[in-house]
Structure formats: structure tokens, C-alpha cells
């Protein structure tokens, strides 16, 4: 089919197309004036060839041309009494099942057609047609299989239909028998077929290069069709989440659904999203953690609870951050952070085994060993190891500590880091800062970092032996935090004091930031600290009724899936990530 023919088609009223939209469509077809540059009726191939012509106007008009041709085919199908958008299809097998059942079929061998009639359905992803023979590759959820279409096997004019009306991208159902071709390709020898859904747009070739990244995320389904391994990431993600549930439920944890919309957003330090409830006439915050409500359940008498759920933080977007992300938080009464370390190992290793069947995996070219036990080391020791600074000898003099730190880290330290060290408001903050700058990136193999300073751990219980520290750990793999856990702070007075301090510090920063920009109203919105932090008084009251000693752990599921699917960006594991508005 060539461009001339396209022109002649599109100038006719597309009567049977669809009741109401005919005129609009004609206009759309006619407006695609640049179609002459695309001589291909075999649209996808054309699309592939033109891939390098990446200016959007060209590809848009290409698409419009293909769309017009295919709409014509829709009409043609209707005129033949066929429905281009079918209502269903009875499948007997998936592609993979067939590959498996018939793996012993020799080259050139055919199963008995009367006995082994099969029926499959899927998307056509490749197509080669010769005189009286056509080969189509059909892909379904499980894999691919070839459709072997011989003119004489098909009834009436079905073969001609197949050649003229089926495009790459169409969803097709086919019946037939099984045969392995001489070249060794297992095929369904098609007796009859039906177009179940006529696709209107051409499929791209495999996407490559940075220019397409944005489109990959915006039209994830195209990415999934073009790159089957992308769809696989989401299949693996489903497996990981299901494995986590299985694991924690086998330990007797019960899932609780806590609210997303809250009167006060607590449980972490982050800018929350704000929304407004019309009939209540009040602002509500989207949760930034599930922690405070899950702890209420412990107060209510549950001893092992968890929630897998969405968390929202009104923060920047990066390869590790999406404004909404998924975590599991779990709490166990009458246990401490030691037991949560074991639980974390259990969860991560079981997930790795479920996805890979082994505990050694490749992440972006680095071999990661998940065999237990994982290294457990205190933050103090790790910092000493990485910098030579012995923080517990520095005492509480912040100024001295800063001097020692800067001297130790040397003059070639990045200016950015120097100023963040200068900005530290306590020795605890300083220790953490040094840890983040120097140690974190080096923690490639799974490592539990223990005993964080109290200043940066407002919800963790003071360490039973070391003053100034808390019973807290974070799990690092590949230089990234994967999990965060502590023996939970159960003392309501201590908790109130620490949260009030957090609010006070936040308000101070906020006030400072506001005065810095000289009260310029319009700029205030953009500042990092411009949001309000409020105390969750109901939570503190709940603690006053008595919460059993407990440990709790939060694990970022997106990051775990990144690790287990060797994905570089969080956007590769979130099906529909938040993106900037397109210009």
C-alpha cells in the first residue's frame, strides 16, 4: 500500500468506521500532509527505519499516516462483517505452555492436527509474508510463538485478509495445530484466526538512547510492548511484593490499613503533600510514613503488625526518589532491633531467591553477595574505619569535633561537603554527616549500620548501654539505604520532648529561611523548610496508655526491586512514575 493509495482512501467518507466520528477522522487523515515521506504500508518497519528522524513533527505525521491506513482497515473489516474489536477469545494454551509441551517435537515434525488443536492469543510483534506463506510472531504474557500461515490451510480468503489486514501490533487469536519448522521454530499451523483488537499506531523498534527515556516512562505500555524485559520487571515486582507478604505472614504478622489522609503528617521528617477536604472544610496531609498509626495498633493490643503501602513525600525527583513510593513497615511487640535485623535478612534473601533462585546477583556491574549473616557494624566504628576519626573520644564539644573532622578529611574535600559539615548543629549530626559523605558510598555489600546518634533518631529508643546513641540500624546495599529500624521509643515523655524539639528546630530553620529571602512572599513557597510541622498529639496520647516494648522496621520496596531487577533508576520499577509536565 503506498502513499497515493492512502490519499485516495482518506478522501472518501469512512462510513462504517464508527457512528459519530467520521468527519473528525477524515480531517485528521487529510491533515497529515507529510505522509508522502513514508512510503511503507508496513508501518512498523517504516517506523523503525525512521527512528533516526527523531524530530517530533515527523514522527507525529508518520503516526497519523499509519493511523489513517489502519482506520481504513478497521472499516474494511467491518464491511466484511468482522468486528475489529472482539469480545473475547477462548485460549487453550499460553505460548510458553506450548513451547514446553512440545519441546521434544523434532524439526519438521507436526503433531496430529485432529488431536492437538490449540488456540492462542496475543500481540503480533513480527511478520514476514511471502506468496502463499506468512510467518507471524505472536507474543502473550508468557512468551512468544510463531504462527505458520499457509494459504491452503486457511478457509476462504482468510490468507489474503491476513496479508492485507493484519499489522504488527494487532491482537490476534489463532487456532491450529502444532508443528516445528525445518529451521527448528515451534509454530502454530493456523487453521483460522481473528483480529481481536486492531491497533492503530505503529510499534517502535526497541527504544535506545537517552532521547527516548521520557517517552518510555510516559507511555510505559509502549516500552513494555517493545522491550519485553520491561514488562518482566513488573512481573518480578509482583513476585517480590507477594514474597514479602508470604514471609511476614509466615511469622504471624497481620496487615493493617492505616490512613493516607491525616490531620498531621508524622513518623518522618519530610515535606508532606497537602490537600483539602471540601465537606470537612479542612486541610489534610498525605502520609509521609505509616509508623505512628501502626504503633497505635501495638497500643491497641496487636503484637505483630505490618503494612505494605504507598508513602508520599513532596520532594524532588531523582533516580532514587519518586514522590510516591512503596514501603513495608512492620512492628513486633516484645522484641528489639536485633530481631529486626534477622527479619530483614530473612525478607531480602527470600525475595532474592524468589526472583533469582540464588543469593549472588549482579547490580549495575557489581556482584552483590546476600548470603547470611550480613556484616553488622556500628556507625562509630565505620566512621573510624573510613576516616580514622574516633568520635566517641571527641566528647561533646561541637567546635572541636568539627575542626578534627575537617583536618582529618583533608583539604581536598568538596566545598559542598565542607559547608554541610560546618552547618551541623550537634556532634550527632556531624557524625552522621561524615558517615553519609565518606562511608555510605562504600557500603556496597549488605551492611547493617548500628547505633545512630540520638539527635537524628527522634523515634528510636535510647541505647541501653551507650549514652547519646539509639538502638537503631539502617541496612545499606550498593551505597543505598534499603531499610531503617529501631527499638521503638515507648516513653511518652521522652517522645514528646523529642518531637517538640524537632518542631522547634524546624520552625527555627523555617524562620531563618524566611528572613534570608527578605520576606519575599512569592519565594517562600519554594523554600525547603516552608512547610509546617505539627505534633501528632493523638499518637502521644496513645503512648501514654502504654505501648509494649517493640521493634519496628521500614523497608523501601522500590529500592529492593531495583536491586533485585538490576534497575538503575526508581523509575524503572515504578510503572507510572511522576514526570514533569510535557512542554
Amino acid at each position, binding site marked *: 500500500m503506498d502513499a497515493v493509495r492512502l490519499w485516495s482512501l482518506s478522501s472518501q467518507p469512512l462510513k462504517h468506521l*464508527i457512528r459519530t466520528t467520521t468527519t473528525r477522522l477524515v480531517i485528521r487523515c487529510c491533515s497529515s500532509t507529510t505522509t508522502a515521506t513514508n512510503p511503507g504500508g508496513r508501518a512498523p518497519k517504516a517506523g523503525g527505519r525512521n527512528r533516526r528522524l527523531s524530530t517530533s513533527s515527523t514522527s507525529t505525521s508518520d503516526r497519523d499516516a499509519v493511523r489513517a491506513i489502519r482506520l481504513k482497515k478497521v472499516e474494511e473489516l467491518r464491511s466484511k462483517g468482522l468486528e475489529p*474489536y472482539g*469480545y*473475547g*477469545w*477462548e*485460549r487453550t494454551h499460553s505460548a510458553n505452555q506450548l513451547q514446553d509441551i512440545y519441546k521434544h517435537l523434532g524439526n519438521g515434525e507436526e503433531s496430529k492436527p485432529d488431536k492437538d488443536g490449540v488456540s492462542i492469543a496475543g500481540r503480533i510483534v513480527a511478520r514476514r509474508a511471502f506468496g502463499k506463506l506468512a510467518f507471524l510472531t505472536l507474543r502473550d*504474557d508468557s512468551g512468544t510463538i510463531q504462527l505458520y500461515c499457509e494459504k491452503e490451510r486457511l478457509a476462504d480468503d482468510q490468507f489474503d485478509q491476513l496479508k492485507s489486514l493484519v499489522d504488527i*501490533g494487532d*491482537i490476534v*487469536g489463532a487456532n491450529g495445530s502444532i508443528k516445528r519448522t525445518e529451521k527448528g521454530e515451534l509454530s502454530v499451523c493456523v487453521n483460522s484466526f481473528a483480529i*481481536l*483488537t*486492531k*491497533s*492503530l*499506531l505503529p510499534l517502535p523498534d526497541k527504544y535506545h538512547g537517552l532521547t527516548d527515556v521520557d517517552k518510555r516512562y510516559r*507511555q*510505559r505500555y509502549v516500552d*513494555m510492548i517493545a522491550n*519485553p524485559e520491561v514488562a518482566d520487571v513488573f512481573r518480578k*515486582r*509482583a513476585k517480590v511484593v507477594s514474597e514479602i507478604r508470604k514471609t511476614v505472614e509466615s511469622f504471624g504478622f*497481620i*496487615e493493617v*490499613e*492505616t*490512613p*493516607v*489522609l491525616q490531620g498531621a503528617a508524622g513518623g518522618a521528617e519530610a515535606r508532606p503533600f497537602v*490537600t483539602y*477536604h471540601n*465537606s*470537612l472544610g479542612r486541610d*489534610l496531609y*498525605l502520609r509521609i510514613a505509616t509508623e505512628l498509626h501502626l504503633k*497505635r495498633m501495638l*497500643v*491497641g*493490643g*496487636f503484637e505483630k503488625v505490618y503494612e505494605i*503501602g*504507598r508513602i508520599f513525600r*513532596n520532594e524532588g525527583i531523582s533516580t532514587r526518589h519518586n514522590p510516591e513510593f512503596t514501603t513495608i513497615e512492620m512492628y513486633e*511487640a*516484645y522484641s528489639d532491633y536485633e530481631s529486626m535485623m534477622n527479619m530483614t535478612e530473612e525478607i531480602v534473601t527470600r525475595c532474592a531467591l524468589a526472583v533469582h533462585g540464588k543469593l549472588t546477583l549482579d547490580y549495575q556491574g557489581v556482584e552483590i553477595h546476600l548470603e547470611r549473616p550480613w556484616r553488622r557494624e556500628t556507625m562509630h566504628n565505620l566512621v573510624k574505619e573510613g576516616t580514622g576519626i574516633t568520635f566517641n573520644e571527641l566528647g561533646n564539644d561541637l567546635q572541636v569535633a568539627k575542626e578534627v573532622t575537617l583536618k582529618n578529611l583533608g583539604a581536598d574535600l568538596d566545598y559542598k561537603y565542607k559547608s554541610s559539615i560546618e552547618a551541623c548543629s550537634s556532634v550527632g549530626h556531624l557524625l552522621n554527616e561524615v558517615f553519609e559523605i565518606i562511608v555510605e558510598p562504600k557500603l556496597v555489600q549488605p551492611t547493617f549500620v548500628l547505633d545512630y546518634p540520638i539527635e537524628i533518631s527522634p523515634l528510636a*529508643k535510647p541505647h541501653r548501654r551507650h549514652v547519646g546513641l539509639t538502638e537503631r540500624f539502617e541496612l545499606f546495599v550498593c551505597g543505598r539505604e534499603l531499610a531503617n529500624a529501631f527499638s521503638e521509643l*515507648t516513653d511518652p515523655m521522652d517522645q514528646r520532648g523529642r518531637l517538640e524539639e524537632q518542631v522547634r528546630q524546624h520552625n527555627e530553620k523555617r524562620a531563618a529561611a524566611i528572613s534570608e529571602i527578605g520576606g519575599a512572599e512569592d519565594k517562600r513557597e*519554594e523554600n525547603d523548610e516552608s512547610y509546617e510541622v505539627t505534633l501528632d498529639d*493523638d499518637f502521644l*496520647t496513645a503512648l*501514654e*496508655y*502504654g*505501648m509494649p*516494648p517493640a521493634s519496628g522496621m521500614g523497608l523501601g520496596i522500590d529500592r529492593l526491586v531495583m536491586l533485585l531487577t538490576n534497575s538503575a533508576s526508581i523509575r524503572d520499577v515504578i*510503572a*507510572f512514575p*511522576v514526570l*514533569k509536565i510535557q512542554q
Partner: protein
Amino acid sequence: MAGEESTPYLEELRHLRSMAKHPSIISLLSSEISSLEKDQSPPLPPQSSPPRLTQEATSAAEKAKQTNVTARSCGKKYVASEDEKDPTKYYENRLNYIATLKNPYPHESSVSKSITEYVKEYEGLLKDQQGVHLENVTESLAGMVMKQRSSGPGCFFYDLCGDRARVQIYASASNSDMDKSEFVKIHSNVKRGDIVNVTGFPGKTMSGQISIFARSFVVLAPCLHMMPTVNPKKITEETEEWGPGRPRNPETYSLKDQETRYRQRHLDLRINPDVQRIVVETRSEITFYIRRFLHSRQFREVETPILNTTAGGATARPFMTHHNELDMQLYMRIAPELYLKQLVVGGIERVFEIGKQFRNEGIDLTHNPEFATCEFYQAYADYNHMMELTEEMLSGMVKELTGGYKIMYHSNGLDKDPIEIDFTPPFRRIDMIEELNKIANLEINPEDLFSEEANSDLKVACKKYGIQCPPPETTTRLLDKLVDHFLEEQCVNPTFIINHPEIMSPLAKWHRSRPGLTERFELFVSKHELCNGYTELNNPIVQRQRFANQLKDRQSGDDEAMPLDEGFCRALEYGLPPTGGVGIGIDRLCMLLTDSVNIKEVIPFPTMKPQDQPSARPS
């Protein structure tokens, strides 16, 4: 309530007294019995949260009535001090007391068994025995003290609760590892609600009560507020435990003030024995069943975004929020439908998502701004198949959770008898327009519904039957009212209403043989919609047209009509296989199976009005 609460516990005490030999124990029991006989009403739950400034008239009256009842002390020797009547004083005294302790919130706790396991093991081991002690066995238990009594300075009894079970602690100075004065100090300051850890040996008291005889006794977390009293009947009648599908009545709970129950759910969970089962466990069993059901049919669980640039997939007013760094207006999803279908386009043929949806609408008995749904989509299936799947899922779930297909539900309110709802498959099916025309004697022609005449005919029909339709009177809304009035009323047992007109169903595929209709079903139970499903509309041209029609309704003032989602339409152009999809309201399902007429009963932390505003309860 005063009359009914006493019996079993009192009888137990009387039985104990008849068995007891030691005079001090007899006198303790006697005083306890007489105190119980005199005063049985539980006191008002303490309000430790910020004071409620305004109260609705009825609830204020109830409060006034309840505050007249004084707090009852828990044992004779334990004399109620003034602070027991004054929550603020009580709280201060507790703070003062814990200030004298070295570490009122210790790190270490040790638990060798759950209370349930303990009771089960030693009830079995010490069957029909009395006054036996297994002194060479050591067990550690932890839980909450729900009742305490003392028989002199050297001997204390507690009811330890946790894990929905209860066991008695017997703490005597002679068994204890503490010196006497320390022992007395600790024990005379134990309050109801304290979380404690006890290590000791198992045994049975003279009356055959399974107990743990404490060697060490540590308060892990003191309760600083007065705990509402538990109605003893509720914990003694263990055989009458509530289960899914059975009727219940929150009016009979020890703690029944709704404001307290929903705002301080932790108290509700501790005090009212059914609540853990209802709010958390039944919901968890339901989602567990759904997941297993769908997983076993090769459905994959996926996650689609809650924050979107448009809110599509349903007709409802969305919540709006703002992303600072991107300076972008975002909507919270009202349905995951459009994204799930995109994943089917992408090649995942069977998907489901169990998750929260958000609708910026009023709060009432059946609506919370956030609610949970399960949506599932299957490629190459149509609505007939999805109806069968839904039928199989729901009837199977009811069977598994309740043991049968029939449940009891207070459809007509708590003051009426519960009715029986029968989930035995197959469910009844009603053809919407056919049935409406028959019952209401109308002549609706589905092919004409987009016309002005049809709209005015429906207005006439509504008027004729006295059916109110608040403006805008769009054809869709008028039809909806008629269906509500004539058809949904019949749907007490699960009933599918099927084949909705196109005008009501912008995302459903046109019916293969009946023009003007779609292949859609809604499942109604107890007159409420529980599921909604259809053969998915996968023709992008028709989909765009449907969105355009919705736009017409928006322009006529229906701001709940669906906006055009260009991204979704584009996805359809790449080809969505023939697909069937269903959405199920999980909260509604929880309500049915827990006999809850208020959605707040089944949501652990429902959205509540701000406390400093007058509560205008929805009627």
C-alpha cells in the same frame, strides 16, 4: 447492662469463695463480690486527648449521665483514691509515680509463649486439676493488665490480656525475687492498662483457675491514664466469640461512645473484644482470600499511581494537591482503572490492584474519603466470564470465612432484627432497562437516550413516581435515580443488574447484540453496590466519543462527569485486547461480613471531623 454484666464473673467469684480455705482470701473475695453487686456499670472512658469543646446535644446528655457513675476500684483492699474520679489528677499522680522509677520503660522483655499458647498448653496439661504448681517449669508472658485485686500486701492477682486471650497472674511476696518492700511498692502501683512482663511457673489455683505464679514481675510500659472498665462478661464468655457473618451489636460494648472508639481506636481495640476481629482480622482475611483467589488464576498484583495529572476511571470529585519542586497540580486517584488497562496494553494479561481510592465527598455511614478497592482485569475475557469469576470469588469467600453461604446483617439498623443474606451461587440477574420498563411501566429505548426527548421523558417519569433528582437533571442521573428506586430496592441477596445503557457507562463496551446498551454489570448486596464490571471498551474512537459525551454533562453542571484522558485514549490506539474488568469495594465487603452498618466500624482510623468543631453527624 448493669444486670447482665455481673453473672458469670460473679459466679466465678462465688465459686472461688466456696472453695477457698484461707480466711484472708475469703474476706477478699467477699468484699469483691459485694462491691461488684453494688456497682456494676463501667465508668466513662477517660478523655486524655484534648478536651472536646463542643458536643452534640445527645452525646453531651449521654456524657452527663455517665459521669455520674463513679469509677469502681478493682479490689477491696485497693481503695479508690480521689484521683480515680478525676482523670487529670490520675494522670498527674501516675507521672509523679513513674518519676520515682529508675527506668519506667525498660529495654528488655522476654516472652516464651503467647498467652493463647500458654493457656492452651497448661489447660491441657493440668486438665481437671486444682491447686497444682509446676515449679520446675519457667515461662515468661507479656501483656496488658486488665483487672487487678489484692489479698493483702503480700499477694496480688491480675488478669493478663493479650493475643485475644487472658490468664491470671498470681504474685506473692514469697515467690518473688524482690524484697518485700520493693514488691509492695511495685505491686501497689500497678494499674489497669499497664503492660507487664511476668516470669514464673505455671499452675492452677485452688479454684482451678489457670495461672502463672510470678517470680519476677516487671512493668514494661505503665498506663498513665485511667483505662475504661471492661465489662467482665465480655471476657468471660469466650465461647460466644464473634465471627464473620454473625450478627453483633456495638451498642452492647463496654466502650460504646463512638467518638472515643473511632478517635482512640487503641482503646476500642483493647476494651471491646470483637473489635480486633472486626477492624483488622476480618479485613485481612478478606484481602488474603482475594489475593489467593487471583494469584491462583495467574493474576499479578501491580501498583499504579495515586498521584495523577488527571483523575479518571470513575465519576467523582477528586482531591487536589500540589508538587512543590515541579510546581505541578496533582489529583489523587479516584480509580486505578485507566492505568491497569494500560498495563494490559503493555502485555500483562491478568492484573489486579488492591489499594486506596480517594474521593473528596461527604462522610456518612457508607462513605469515607479514602477507601479500599480491588480491581482486576483479564485479557480475552468478557463480562459474562467476569460475572462468573465475581460470583465464585464472593461466594467462596463467604463460605471460607463464615463456614456457610448465609450471613446475618443489620440491613435495617441496629434497632431492627438482622436479616439473612444468601451468597449461594448463582446470583440473580436483572436486565436493567427491560426490568425498569416492566416495573415502572416505562418505554425507555436505549438507542434514544442521548436525545432531549428521552431526557424529558425521564423527568416526567421521576415526577410521576415522586423520585427526587437534585440538579443537574442529566439523563444519566435521572436513570440512576429510577434504577435506585425500582431495582436496587429488590437487591437484598446478591443480585447482578446488567446491561446498562451506554450513556451511563463511558468505559464499558457496547453490547454485542443490543444497540444502545453496554456489556456491564453491577452487583448489589443489601441494596448497596458492591461490584462493578464490564467488557472493557477498547475501541479508541468510541472511547473518545464517550468522553466527549461526558463533557456535555460536565458543561451542564455535573462536575462528576468523567474528563477526557488523552494518554489513556492513546494507549487504546496501540491496542487493548478484549478484556473484562471488575472493581470490588473492600470496605463494603468488610461491612457485610462484620455486620457493620457504619463504614467507620471497619476502617481502623476513619477520617474524622476536626475535634474543635461542632460535630454535625450525618443522618
